[in-house]
């Protein structure tokens, strides 16, 4: 069992999506592959994207900065920090941006290691990864159920009361002021650890064993191996994951709105929620800048961490052709594992899988009970379709499903078309200017949190005299999805061998024909990944729907939020809604996960 027995991945491009964080040491696709070395037509392909991003992301950020700095730094920042809760929101946001990514990455690494040693691995990985497909709204509902102060609903409360009876102290409620932030963070970790496990699995499985075998032969201990071989090898991946999760903590917004009772809102308030609650206040743009600075520092640190002097030859497992995640035997794990470690791994994975599956099971078991039972009795009651019946009879969920589907479909279509044009222009029709700058800008646009651009967008709409319409909703969603999609497609396009491109060029007519042939041919997997991610992003959105509220349009996120207002008496209907809403992204991700993981992981490992 050696590295040679693995099928090599067909394409391993240099640099890629996750690696774009590290653009500073990455010059992008090799220039020799370009069709036309330097021309202005490249700019034409980029025009729609540039206009859209400039209007919806660029200008609002500038506006926010201008508002924050107008009249001198002191004034606006003074206004912002006059409220002690604003200070608390900044502190909590720093904690979120530092602690949560660390927990996700460390836990993800440990679980990835453990899952490689057991036969539970594939199912385990699937269970750990499933929450990634769910929306943060659904995660919030599941966790609120888990931590409900009533023992009939809140399994975590049941456990904590049981434990405290043993040691004889009164436990604070999970949703009370003491523990609320921990509870909300646990929901986030639940949702995000899957991506860390998948990425670490892919990289660990691709790591050549000779290095480790050689070190072992030299008599290295477990700790020597960890600090001299494993950690340096994983440094780049870990740094990129840290940055990704740190940027993702903006999504704590959904969790706080869904999980946190009104009374403790101030104890859990983070900048996204604070900026949303008080969005008319003069100090808000200054807080936006503070948040940007926090994110900037974390991403910059991660980029430094991602610079790797010693890139290892890592080969990705061929996910595109695997039936499921490749079995352990096929991966050639070093055979020298002790049975004890294998058993420990099995226990760790089994515990993690149980804990991770539990909120989903809780959601389903609440949904399949009558609404009255879901409020008052323990889980033992009989199944009933009552909650689903009430969901469709008394809430606008059916409208919301149809309209959210339509919105996500339109946005995905537009994003895929515009991103293909832009990526094509960037890769082969190199526009004037440094390609690196464009990538940095795209990356910046992909990570700017929505609450920071929200005041600028609102101001823009007001001054243009545009009220909130479905069209505005589509435009803003497209702009938010484009940067990520372009970065992903750019990698895929750049990875196409130049010979293949020349073949295409012989038969296709014009640049448009070439693009079509590329998109439908070699770039199809990447395009599938982009379309799936984009559809799921719009489907799972809450923030944009609240920012651009169109009263005539029902969307699933806001409908669930409305139902969550009366949480205890609405638990059954709410859980039923969460289950129905989750089906769409789960199906999409199940059918496309190979493309997505390949697209995301490709650039992390470099040859």
């Amino acid at each position: 069992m050696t590295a040679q027995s693995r099928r090599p991945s067909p394409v391993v491009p240099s640099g890629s999506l996750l690696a774009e964080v590290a653009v500073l040491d990455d010059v992008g696709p090799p220039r020799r592959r370009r069709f036309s070395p330097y021309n202005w037509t490249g700019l034409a392909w980029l025009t729609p994207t540039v206009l859209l991003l400039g209007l919806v992301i660029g200008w609002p950020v500038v506006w926010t900065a201008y508002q924050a700095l107008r009249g001198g730094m002191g004034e606006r920042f003074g206004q912002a920090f006059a409220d002690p809760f604003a200070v608390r929101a900044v502190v909590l946001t720093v904690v979120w941006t530092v602690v949560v990514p660390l927990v996700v990455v460390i836990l993800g690494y440990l679980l990835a290691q453990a899952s490689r040693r057991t036969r539970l691995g594939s199912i385990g990985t699937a269970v750990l990864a499933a929450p990634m497909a769910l929306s943060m709204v659904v995660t919030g509902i599941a966790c609120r159920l888990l931590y409900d102060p009533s023992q009939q609903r809140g399994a975590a409360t049941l456990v904590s009361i049981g434990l405290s009876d043993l040691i004889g102290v009164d436990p604070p409620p999970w949703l009370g002021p003491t523990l609320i932030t921990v509870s909300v963070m646990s929901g986030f970790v639940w949702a995000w650890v899957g991506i860390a496990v998948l990425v670490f699995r892919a990289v660990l499985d691709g790591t050549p064993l000779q290095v480790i075998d050689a070190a072992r032969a030299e008599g290295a201990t477990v700790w020597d191996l960890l600090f001299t071989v494993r950690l340096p090898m994983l440094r780049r991946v870990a740094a990129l994951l840290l940055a990704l999760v740190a940027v993702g903590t903006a999504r704590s917004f959904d969790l706080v709105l869904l999980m946190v009772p009104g009374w403790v809102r101030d104890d859990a308030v983070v900048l996204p929620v604070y900026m949303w609650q008080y969005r008319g206040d003069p100090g808000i743009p200054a807080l936006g800048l503070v948040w940007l600075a926090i994110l900037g520092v974390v991403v910059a640190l991660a980029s430094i961490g991602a610079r790797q002097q010693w890139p290892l030859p890592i080969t990705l497992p061929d996910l595109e052709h695997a039936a499921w995640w490749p079995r352990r035997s096929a991966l050639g794990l070093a055979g020298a594992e002790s049975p004890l470690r294998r058993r420990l791994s099995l226990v760790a994975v089994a515990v993690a899988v149980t804990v991770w599956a539990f909120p989903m099971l809780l959601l389903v078991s609440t949904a399949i009970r009558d609404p009255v039972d879901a409020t008052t009795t323990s889980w033992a009651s009989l199944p009933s379709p009552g909650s689903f019946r009430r969901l469709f009879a008394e809430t606008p969920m059916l409208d919301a499903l149809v309209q959210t589907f339509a919105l996500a479909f339109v946005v995905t279509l537009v994003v895929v078309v515009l991103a293909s044009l832009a990526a094509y222009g960037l890769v082969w029709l190199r526009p004037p200017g440094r390609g690196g700058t464009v990538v940095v800008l795209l990356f910046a646009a992909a990570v700017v949190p929505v609450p920071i651009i929200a005041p600028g967008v609102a101001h823009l709409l007001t001054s243009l005299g545009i009220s909130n319409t479905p069209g505005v909703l589509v435009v803003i969603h497209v702009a938010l999805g484009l940067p990520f999609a372009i970065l992903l497609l750019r990698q895929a396009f750049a990875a196409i061998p130049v010979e293949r491109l020349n073949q295409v060029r012989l038969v296709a007519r014009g640049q448009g024909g070439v693009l079509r042939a590329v998109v439908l041919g070699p770039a199809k997997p990447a395009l599938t990944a982009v379309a799936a991610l984009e559809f799921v992003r719009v489907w799972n959105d809450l923030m944009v729907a609240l920012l651009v509220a169109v009263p005539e349009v029902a969307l699933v996120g806001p409908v669930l939020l409305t139902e969550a207002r009366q949480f205890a008496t609405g638990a059954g209907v709410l859980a039923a809604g969460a289950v129905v809403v989750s089906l769409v992204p789960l199906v999409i991700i199940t059918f496309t996960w190979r493309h997505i993981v390949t697209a995301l992981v490709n650039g992390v490992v470099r040859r």
Partner: protein
Amino acid sequence: MTGTSRRTVLRGLAAGVAGPLLLRAAPAVTVVPLAAACAPGRDTVQIVVVWSGRELEMFRRALNSWEERPPIQLISAGNGIDSLIRSRIEAGNPPHIAVLPQPGLLTGLVADYPDDVVAHPHKLARWPGWPWRDLLTVSGTLYGVWLKATHKSVFWHRLRRGFDVSYQPGTLHQLRRDLVTAPDAVLGVGAGDGWVLTDWFENALLGIAPGVYRGLTDNTVSWDSPEVAEALRWLGEVWSIDDVLSGGPQRALLTQYDQAAIQVLGNRPGIGLTFEGDFIAPALAPYQKSKLVDLRLGTFRFPPKEKEEKEDAFPLVVGGDFAVLLKTGDRATDTAARRVVEWLAGPEAARLFAAHGFLTIHEEAGNAEYLTSVRDELPASNLPNLLKDLAGQLRNPGSSVEFDLSDQLKGRLAGGDGQGIWRLFQDFFFTVTRPDADINMVVDDAQRALAAAAPEA
């Protein structure tokens, strides 16, 4: 999802959240396709409402029972209803009808857009007694019609020895004493909803000093006044009675109003009591059906400070929702919209609303039957009769009636989840129920916080 659910929405989430429901004559509800969401047919009457969830659903069902209705589109705007209407008027595209929860919003609209709000003939004002007509009249002209009213001065309890059908404490002092002496009294307080606590406060204050209550609504009296302190102290004394709160104070702060009622009115030993508006009744119905809440309940009015001869002088805090007609300039739909408002103001609509559990104050609907939409399933429940009594009290509100105070507050005091007066009262509840609380100090602190958040008097 019932009752005042609109008030539990985040004030910060002013944006509308629930979705549209399109009513047509033939199919009851049509889905609005995304692209056509803005133009759902030229002949459609648009109604913007604050309701969502069950309240909206009940309204939709009531409208659906009207056979000659024109095509109607319901838009749920949540707490953002005022800004939605204003921006639509500015854009020259107002909705035809707006259903508003606060008379203050109407006064503001009429002041800013006198040409866009349509006046009603006084013959539509078929509600007896003060304050109903006055609340919707701006400088002598009637601008709205009441659809439903809310009674916020009533306790609900299980029928037990000492707390029978005729139980009615005469004074605040007596109510507190009865709660202390009854060995097994359990009080359900949905303190998770901040407005439950402000409703308690409003009733206590109205029973102590109606003048101060009125002064706080128009900001001519300071929150520092001794009467406010007296009301707070009484609340603190009641809430901190040993073991009276169901599940303890921390649990109460995580319990919402409907859950609190279900907890204490259910089949468990002891005297369960809760203080909630009339809107708790439709929320309780399914639990009565499942025998999780007693089928027969008692009610009593929030008592005043001093003993009164007649119940007329007992404090009565009310709320309600009314429809306002807006001019769109399109003659056909404007005529249709007027027809809708006239129907909404009539006795048929009143009876339909009553059937779904909304209190009606229409003078011709005094004999309206309540909760008939679920009555077949609840033959033994006395909830419908209790609602009928409450509606009767709203028709003859007596001498001490006021519109909800917290709904009229502005600026930093305006309530919302975790915000304004809701938050301040939740903090007060938390500190005053601690075992080591010094009630005078806590009251002082709460009063100082309220005064600091209030605009300059």
